[in-house]
């Protein structure tokens, strides 16, 4: 197993910049997730690592070895393709054994390894079938087996779960995480699904338009998105974003949004002044909007600081998920989604006053989209 290092990788297809200056270090034995919307360059990054595509500029290292000019067959990586790319004319056994045969393993050694890996994956009874006779989940396992059997330096996985039904996907998610832990292998896992990224990745990298937006622990990326794109891309329902100009009222800096004033924390307002920013985008996650505390409750919890903003409006749409309800509130002509507990049940048309605490307000420079403040 080894680390994989992307050094200032750029890739152009004619006029399309698929990747711009991507620098990324995937640690040894890490489950690393590349996350981004369709067309952001995830597959391209993976294919460059695999040696299936040549970067326009930059270098790629596996371990400490510069493999930029090493052909795919000699990189000792394994790739799991989105639609598996199993050899349709070969049995499961031959599919799994193929990489070993190409590397000249002895016949009985191959048989032993194939047995071992297929047993691990629970497909030992399918060895004589052809891929055409397998279900999606079984094909997925064969593709994994083909990758695992030769103990590669790293596993590259391109949206491997996207062709499975949702139940199977949840199951395979857990299995892949366990597998990675058991193998102590380096995984680079590509997905456009933020839930997969959050649940599986030890670290995630968010990509957009071929540019790296943020790298970090899933929780950190969620809690402190580096820019507006990351903020809106990660989280479901998505973060509410309200735009407005900066004002000073009663000695406090605030943003005047269509849904009301949002106070800017002291730490953030220092940054705002320093950077000469005049208009901001305010981000509030739906779960951080809570019904305003009653007078008595506020009195009892004296520690509760006064909220950064109160948003008042009518409930326009209520989606109940059983455990919680997503309420769309229209305030000042803008829709804001709040994620509220399932009780009390909110009726459509009800007036709600929603509060958000200062530490849950994200601020972004409207022009650059970059995060402002802590």
């Amino acid at each position, binding site marked *: 197993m080894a680390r994989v290092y992307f050094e200032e990788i750029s890739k152009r297809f004619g006029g399309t910049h698929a990747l711009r200056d991507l620098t990324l270090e995937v640690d040894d034995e890490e489950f690393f997730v590349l996350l981004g919307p369709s067309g952001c360059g995830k597959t391209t990054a993976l294919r460059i690592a*695999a*040696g*299936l595509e040549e970067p326009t500029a930059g270098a790629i290292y596996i371990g400490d070895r510069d493999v930029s000019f090493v*052909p*795919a*067959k*000699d*990189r000792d*990586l*394994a*790739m799991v*393709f989105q*639609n598996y*790319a*199993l*050899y*349709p*004319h*070969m049995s499961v056994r031959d599919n799994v054994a*193929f*990489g070993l045969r*190409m*590397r000249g393993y002895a016949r009985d050694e191959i048989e032993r390894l194939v047995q071992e890996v297929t047993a691990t994956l629970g497909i030992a009874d399918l060895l004589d079938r052809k891929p*055409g006779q397998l279900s999606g989940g079984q094909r997925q396992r064969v593709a994994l087996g*083909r990758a695992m059997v*030769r103990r590669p330096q790293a596993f590259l996985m391109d949206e491997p779960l996207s062709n499975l039904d949702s139940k199977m996907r949840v199951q395979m998610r857990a299995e892949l995480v366990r597998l990675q832990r058991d193998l102590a292998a380096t995984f680079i896992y590509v997905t456009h699904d933020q839930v997969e990224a959050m649940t599986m990745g030890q670290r995630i990298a968010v990509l957009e338009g071929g540019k790296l937006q943020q790298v970090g622990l899933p929780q950190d990326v969620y809690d402190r998105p580096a820019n507006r794109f990351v903020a809106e891309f990660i989280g479901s329902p998505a973060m509410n974003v309200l735009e407005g100009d900066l004002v000073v009222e009663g000695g406090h800096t605030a943003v005047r949004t269509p849904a009301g004033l949002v106070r800017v924390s002291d730490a953030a307002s220092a940054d705002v002044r320093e950077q000469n920013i005049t208009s901001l985008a305010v981000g509030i996650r739906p779960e951080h909007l809570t019904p305003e505390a009653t007078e008595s409750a506020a009195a009892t919890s004296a520690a509760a600081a006064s909220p950064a903003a109160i948003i008042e409006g009518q409930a326009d749409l209520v989606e109940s998920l059983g455990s919680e309800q997503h309420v769309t509130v229209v305030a000042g002509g803008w829709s804001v989604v709040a994620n509220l507990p399932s009780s009390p049940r909110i009726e459509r048309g009800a007036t709600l006053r929603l509060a958000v605490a200062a530490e849950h307000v994200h601020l972004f420079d409207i022009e650059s989209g970059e995060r402002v403040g802590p």
Partner: protein
Amino acid sequence: MTAAEGVARPGSLVRSAWRMLAALPFLLPSMVLFGAFVFYPLGKAVYLGFFISNPFRTRQIYVGFDQYREVLTSSEFVSSLLVTGTFTLYTVFPAIAIGTFLAVLANQRLPGIIVFRTVFSSTIAASVAISAVLWLVLLHPSIGVLNEAVEAAGLSRVNWLQDGGWAVGEHATVFDMVAAWFIDPNWALISVSLATLWMNIGLFTVIVLAGLQTIPEELYEAARVDGAGRWQQFRHVTLPMLSPTLFFASVIGMIFAFQSFGQIQILTEGGPVDASTVMLYSIYETGFEPPFRVGAAAVQSLALFAIMLALTLAQFRMLAGRVFYR
């Protein structure tokens, strides 16, 4: 409605009769065509085989199976079998191999590759007559380019179209002829085969190219990541994925070989002696050249038909199991 219910119903017989009647107009065109151009001639050939006749069949004598026996055991027939087999061997497999090679070359994604694809497949567009005349010039013993090349390579000139090798001269038995096959090249047949090969390569290139383009690129990428080099990719991905195409090519290649006529007529007229007389050419000579032995020609056609049928069935039997269909 199940079949049993259908039978139980009164009037269902009438209904199925009606259905047959309704189907008839749709079947009629092909029934007429096949009847007129396949089944009637086939029956007629069997019939003709029982008679010997004068050129215009104004008089004919019934001889029964005697004519079948006589034709099928004649040394001319055995020779034509051997010549046809050799011709098939010389043309089909090399054409498939070369066609595959060219198709793999032309299947790469390179700028201007379309030019190569066009060139490689261009022999399809040349008529048999023109190609044959072209080869007549190339093979000319004194002015032909081929002999120039042979001489430049330090070998002695070949009398391409006039040297019948093992197929001419006296052979005491069939076995002697077969023995001669190995040591005395039949240059006339080789010449005809070269021209045929050249003419067929275009078609085989196109067929294989079409087959290659159905193989998903991802399989090659998976193989590369799995550690396969170019040859291994060809051996383990291209060839098996191409097997239905190659099978198809071998069947039609064989049928082409059995039906070759024009180039033989122009290049050698079946000669010297019978050195390049394949079965089809022999049928033509027997039936359409004096003394117009129509009955004997009919017997040979039936033999050719039987052989083609048997070989096609055998190919399906032998290869179908090994061919991978998705």
